[in-house]
């Protein structure tokens, strides 16, 4: 059997292949040769064959038949020299991803104790790159031993191996802790670097470890090392463009970031060194900027003093002006992270950011767009909108949807005038009409109804917009709806804002019919158009017959939705004509669910539909019988609006004066409330001023939660949140859990508070508390406490448990002072 060809030969041969087929043939021939060579069990050429297998695998051909052979080889004998081993280990890494690792367990074990450090190093490397969790578990002890060795070549590899072990089997983290004590005393940079990586991994994964390392003064140690790096002279071994070991510097900065986060002492200990790095690092090369970047990230994330933060933002500002795209990209990314906390500082760089909208690079554009939206406020809205609308015009399709949504949001919050708002909406609809998200259409319609005085102007502009082109669905939908509503304003030429156009009823119907007929119209759009035509029957005077005709035609439409509508409208004409005007009259102004202003998202009863707000049921209606009676018992009065958790609340849930004898005997410190007028006419105070969106959240954190009730296996915890913008409001989230062995069903939580308070209960998450504490019911209570009196509450709990109905009353007195002061 001739000697198998050398690797280089093979490579050269394969490269001469001119077609894929030719290449495949050569590979197959070689595979066959290797197989027979393996079969002959001749070890002299096994290295060569293994290397060729690797090559073929890299080209994309299956080379797994060699796995078994390699396993046997590695298992069978100790590698006496490193030539086989390197290739074999490489093969292990490349080829043997899914093999049964049991084979290698034995191998690695023996290799990790091998005399040659290179073989040990290879074993560590392979384990560190690809070890499965079983392997990691089995060999962690060996790795830990090598972590303590004095051989720095092996020590650094062991450290990274430990990182991999921790990633795969986090529970083993503890066992590496003792070895970390002396790691940072090394002089060898390789060991230092890998040690910092190991410490970082441990701190990121476990708060206990983090606390431990803070305690053992890791921060001063790191600061010292970093200082030495910066101050020391030129060291050729680790120098990169004049900076000493930037890799180590960056890793230390990152670890410092984790240690300093949310920790005043640690942050203070690193203030100086951060300032030093920030001011002294050379910025002419990428290396320096990499270090500055990491420094900025660290400064922004820890509790740094304000001077340092300003320094950081200025660095980012300089980055933004840099010609290098990479630097700008990095600057935009960081600014995005800090814009919430250091808003004013970032505002200063607004014009540069807006310029980045015009960049060629997609990633830069995206970040610039997100930042721009974050920076829009009442002062700059006009200018910013101009830029953003221009961006919307020219950007790639993948951005248009997000950009449109962003513009709508910003316009809603900061519109300087209604007309401007409508104009902006129009502009977006006409430029990016087909990319606007579906859920934007109802929002826009609601907005338009609310600007009562702009109806005529709006409908006129919309009409003109679709006259030319009715292919953009969201635009057409909004336009159809408006024309249906305000068609009378359109034909009567009442527009004040701009030159009224002369439109006849027939022309309006023409355009709506075209929409109906057009192939470009989606089914939903057609629905809008048909309904609009129908509504016009009460608003137009001379074309009712035409409308009747159109509607009756669609009574036989193939589209089921249209057909149904048409048939119903037909019926309206024929049998219920007397009801038609009332049914189709002008929509009332929908109360806005989202109020203006950046800090307010309103939640009524956990729902956000405007419909809920519109009607207020008479007090004596609604309540589900059993519930109401119980409540009335609780409250002691007979003509009060009971607290029904799911009742709509455009009034406060409690009328004032007639409340509770029950609560009357609670000792209320402070002013006696002398027959106050029932506060029925109060505006829905609980519906505004309650920040719920985390982005703008300024809720004071850290009010301790309490256990309000704990009996018979039912435990109810209260957690509190308060708003800085409206300090009289306290939001209590109750969590009910059940530690018995059976579920509690039909759980109802009711609450009553003293007269000076007002209460609103939102819908609970469910009515079943699963057993064994396996789940909870949550419910939100909002309490208004304008007089800042001490919070007290009486609660009533009803539920079914183990087949019987349970009921209990309790008083909650242990509200922490921070929840009401």
């Amino acid at each position: 059997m001739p000697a198998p060809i050398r690797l280089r030969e093979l490579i050269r041969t394969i490269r001469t292949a001119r077609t894929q087929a030719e290449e495949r043939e050569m590979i197959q021939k070689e595979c066959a040769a290797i197989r027979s060579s393996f079969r002959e069990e001749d070890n002299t050429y096994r290295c060569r064959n293994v290397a060729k297998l690797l090559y073929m695998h890299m080209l994309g051909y299956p080379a797994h038949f060699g796995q078994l052979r390699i396993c046997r080889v590695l298992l069978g004998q100790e590698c006496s020299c490193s030539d086989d081993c390197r290739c074999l280990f490489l093969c292990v890494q490349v080829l043997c991803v899914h093999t049964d690792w049991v084979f290698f367990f034995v191998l690695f074990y023996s290799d990790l104790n091998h005399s040659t450090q290179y073989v040990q190093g290879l074993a560590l490397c392979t384990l560190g790159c690809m070890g499965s969790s079983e392997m990691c578990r089995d060999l962690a002890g060996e790795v830990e031993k090598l972590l303590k060795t004095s051989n720095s070549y092996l020590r650094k590899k062991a450290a990274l191996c430990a990182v991999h072990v921790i990633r795969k089997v986090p529970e083993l983290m503890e066992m590496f802790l003792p070895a970390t004590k002396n790691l940072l005393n090394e002089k060898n940079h390789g060991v230092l670097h890998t040690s910092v990586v190991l410490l970082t991994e441990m701190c990121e994964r476990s708060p206990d470890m983090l606390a431990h390392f803070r305690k053992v003064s890791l921060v001063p140690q790191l600061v010292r090392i970093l200082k030495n790096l910066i101050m020391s002279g030129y060291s050729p071994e680790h120098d990169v463009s004049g900076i000493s070991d930037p890799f180590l510097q960056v890793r230390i900065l990152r670890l410092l970031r984790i240690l300093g986060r949310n920790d005043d002492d640690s942050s203070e200990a690193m203030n100086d060194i951060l300032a030093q790095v920030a001011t002294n690092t050379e910025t002419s090369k990428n290396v320096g900027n990499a270090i500055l970047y990491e420094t900025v990230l660290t400064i922004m994330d820890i509790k740094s003093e304000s001077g340092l933060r300003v320094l950081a933002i200025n660095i980012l500002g300089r980055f933004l002006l840099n010609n290098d795209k990479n630097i700008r990209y990095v600057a935009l990314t960081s600014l995005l992270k800090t814009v919430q906390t250091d808003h004013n500082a970032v505002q200063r760089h607004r014009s540069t950011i807006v310029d980045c909208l015009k960049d060629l690079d997609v990633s830069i554009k995206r970040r610039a767009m997100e930042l721009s939206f974050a920076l829009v406020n009442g002062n700059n809205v006009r200018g910013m909108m101009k830029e953003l609308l221009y961006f919307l015009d020219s950007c790639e399709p993948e951005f248009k949807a997000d950009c449109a949504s962003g513009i709508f949001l910003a316009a809603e919050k900061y519109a300087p005038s209604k007309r401007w708002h409508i104009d902006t909406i129009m502009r977006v609809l006409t430029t990016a009409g087909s990319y606007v998200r579906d859920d934007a259409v109802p929002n826009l319609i609601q907005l338009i109804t609310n600007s009562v005085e702009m109806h005529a102007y709006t409908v006129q502009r919309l009409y003109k917009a679709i006259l030319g082109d009715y292919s953009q669905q969201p635009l057409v939908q909004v336009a159809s709806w408006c024309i249906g509503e305000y068609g009378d304003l359109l034909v009567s030429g009442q527009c004040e804002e701009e030159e009224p156009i002369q439109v006849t009823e027939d022309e309006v119907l023409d355009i709506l019919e075209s929409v109906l007929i057009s192939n470009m119209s989606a089914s939903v759009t057609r629905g809008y158009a048909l309904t609009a035509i129908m509504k016009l029957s009460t608003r137009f005077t001379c074309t009712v017959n035409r409308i009747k005709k159109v509607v009756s035609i669609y009574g036989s439409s193939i589209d089921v939705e249209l057909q149904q509508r048409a048939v119903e409208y037909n019926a309206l004409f024929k049998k219920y004509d007397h009801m038609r005007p009332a049914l189709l009259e002008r929509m009332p102004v929908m109360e806005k669910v989202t109020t203006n202003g950046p800090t307010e998202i309103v939640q009524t009863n956990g729902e956000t539909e405007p419909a809920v707000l519109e009607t207020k049921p008479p007090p004596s209606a609604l309540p589900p019988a059993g519930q109401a009676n119980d409540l009335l018992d609780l409250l002691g009065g007979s003509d009060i609006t009971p607290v029904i958790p799911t009742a709509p609340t455009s009034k406060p849930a409690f009328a004032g004066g007639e409340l509770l004898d029950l609560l009357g005997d609670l000792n209320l410190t402070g002013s006696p409330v002398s027959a106050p007028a029932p506060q029925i006419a109060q505006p829905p105070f609980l519906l505004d001023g309650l920040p719920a969106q985390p982005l703008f959240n300024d809720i004071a954190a850290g009010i301790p939660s309490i256990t309000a009730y704990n009996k018979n296996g039912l435990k109810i915890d209260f957690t509190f949140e308060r708003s800085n913008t409206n300090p009289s409001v306290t939001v209590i989230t109750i969590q009910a859990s059940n530690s018995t062995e059976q579920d509690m069903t039909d759980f109802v939580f009711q609450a009553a508070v003293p007269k000076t308070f007002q209460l609103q209960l939102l819908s609970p998450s469910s009515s079943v508390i699963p057993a064994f504490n396996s789940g909870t019911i949550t419910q939100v209570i909002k309490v208004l406490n304008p007089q800042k009196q001490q919070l007290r509450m009486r609660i009533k709990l009803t539920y079914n448990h183990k087949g019987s109905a349970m009921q209990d009353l309790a008083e909650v007195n242990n509200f922490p002072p921070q929840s009401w002061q």
Partner: protein
Amino acid sequence: QIHFILLFSRQGKLRLQKWYTTLPDKEKKKIIREIVQIILSRHQKTSSFVDWKDLKLVYKRYASLYFCCAIEDQDNELLTLEVVHRYVELLDRYFGNVCELDIIFNFEKAYFILDEFIIGGEVQETSKKSAVKAIEDSDMLQETVEEYMNKPAF
């Protein structure tokens, strides 16, 4: 943590692939195809960073070879560029004025060098000298054996 490193030519031929996460072969091939396509279609004037799935791709072209690293969201992109550059420097030191052909014909050496520089997606040695010395030492061991056995290993 670096998730994987790919080296490929301007025609899209793969010269080296190193994975630091476990994925099935088919998945790897798919990813390679996708990424090669994304990077080869990038305009020259754009930045070296691409958002891809939940990772960031950092790439740089050296002569006819593209070096591409995939890093996680919290990793420092600029530093990754330095990591790539350092790897090229190591190759250069070892091969002496390295070019693509060197990597093609000595791909296993390229892997060995990479393994002395990065383990598990993290840098293990920041000194150029030490990294190259380690390779050269183990090379010497191999040469001794080769001499002894009177034939080249490969």
